[in-house]
């Protein structure tokens, strides 16, 4: 499945996940978590081959418009309505190393804050030219990019007047299944970020700030689209050089 590199792949176990940096499972302010949060202690397991390996996807799976949400669902000659933006950045691991060949999948609401989904009930209209999904695979230097429209904020049933700040969902595959991650990107300057019961499941303000993409004026395309830069960090992995493995390194 891989066409990313002829370098010998790394096989070290991943750094222990810092669970205090992530949201705990039970966060009563986000009501759905109450019945969906495990309550017993997790069983700790230093990564075995079942977790340090993972599926890797080649660029061959990608279609030409997969990273262009403005056009990948639009009728020929038309485009999605909204503020045109470029989202780009790097996927790194905790050692600061770029992660090449990482598959990113993204999904989002349209410019009015409406998702194209049968369970969606918000009164804002659908955009006939916007599907809301896209994907990209990082280059050798860990970079990715896609074009979309800025999603709108929207209300959701939690508290009587809770709203989600504008955001884009990301699903990320690194090189090992233990790196699997889903997260959300927010936009610099949005006052709604700090009012959101999903954002604030994350206990540490610095961790939340790690999910806020700054406006990237340098990469903004004149007369076309503004840019936001969003770097993603996956778990790092140990060197296997000095590990005592009967299977060898």
């Amino acid at each position, binding site marked *: *499945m891989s066409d*990313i590199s002829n370098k010998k792949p*790394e096989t070290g176990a991943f750094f222990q*996940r*810092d669970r205090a*940096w992530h949201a*705990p*499972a039970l*966060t009563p302010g*986000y009501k*759905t*978590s*109450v*019945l*969906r*949060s495990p*309550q*017993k202690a*997790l*069983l700790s*397991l230093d990564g*075995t*081959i*079942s*977790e340090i*390996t*993972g*599926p890797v*996807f080649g660029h061959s799976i990608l*279609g030409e*418009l997969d990273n262009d949400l403005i056009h990948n669902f639009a009728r020929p000659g038309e485009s999605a309505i909204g503020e045109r933006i470029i989202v780009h950045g790097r996927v*790194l*691991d905790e*050692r*600061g190393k770029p992660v090449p060949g990482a598959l990113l*999948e993204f*999904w989002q609401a349209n410019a009015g804050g409406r*998702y*194209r989904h049968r*369970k*969606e009930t918000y009164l804002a209209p659908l955009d006939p030219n916007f*599907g*809301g*999904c896209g994907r990209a695979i990082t280059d050798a230097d860990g970079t990715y990019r896609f074009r979309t429209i800025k999603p709108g904020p929207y209300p959701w049933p939690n508290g009587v007047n809770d709203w989600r700040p504008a955001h884009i*969902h990301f*699903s990320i595959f690194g*090189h090992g299944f233990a790196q*699997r*991650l*889903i997260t959300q990107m927010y936009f610099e300057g949005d006052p709604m970020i700090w009012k959101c019961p*999903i*954002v604030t*499941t*994350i206990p540490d303000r610095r*961790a939340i700030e*790690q*999910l806020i993409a700054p406006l990237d004026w340098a990469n903004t395309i004149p007369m076309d689209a503004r840019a936001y830069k969003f770097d993603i*960090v996956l778990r*790092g992995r140990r060197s296997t050089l000095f590990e005592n493995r009967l*299977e060898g390194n």
Partner: protein
Amino acid sequence: MVQELGYLKESPSQTAGPYVHIGCTPNFAGIAGVYETDLGSSMVNDKTLGERITVRGRVIDGGGTPLKDALVEIWQADAAGLYNSPSELRGAADPNFTGWGRCPTSADEGVFTFETVKPGRVPYKDGRRMAPHITFWIVARGINIGLHTRMYFADEAEANAEDPLLARIEHRHRVATLVAPRKGSIYTFDIHLQGEKETVFLDI
């Protein structure tokens, strides 16, 4: 003063939300024409080696209700015990088996289904062989960080008895939460998020 280690922090997880299917299985979500197929919808083809099996189950919340908006991913070795991954250095896995599957739980009954093969045994870090198993990863609305667990096979009692991970489960009655019973070629693996039958989840 000492030098700085300079490590970065992992990006914090956020819930997959109610619309994860738009991004991960758009054809299932009714968004046709963007991708040809949903990734992970097929793990095998007619040349795949090994015993064909079906793995089926539900993700059940603390009130006993199956989740109808969950996304389940699995990762497993091929029939010979090799992973289809660049980090697999012990040999070449069956090219007709991806090892990775992704399935939304169904809108009516909340059931996930994988058509796959029974995996071979793979080594633990100390060289002992682990019992055949499938790695699971579960995300959904209300789950703040994806849940990792493993499914073992009830008809592998001997291998399960010597499995290093199962051996580490302190409360022995909980071992059963990871072992799927077999009926014909179908293994049933219900995942309980809470309660008496809470599945053993892993911090890996």
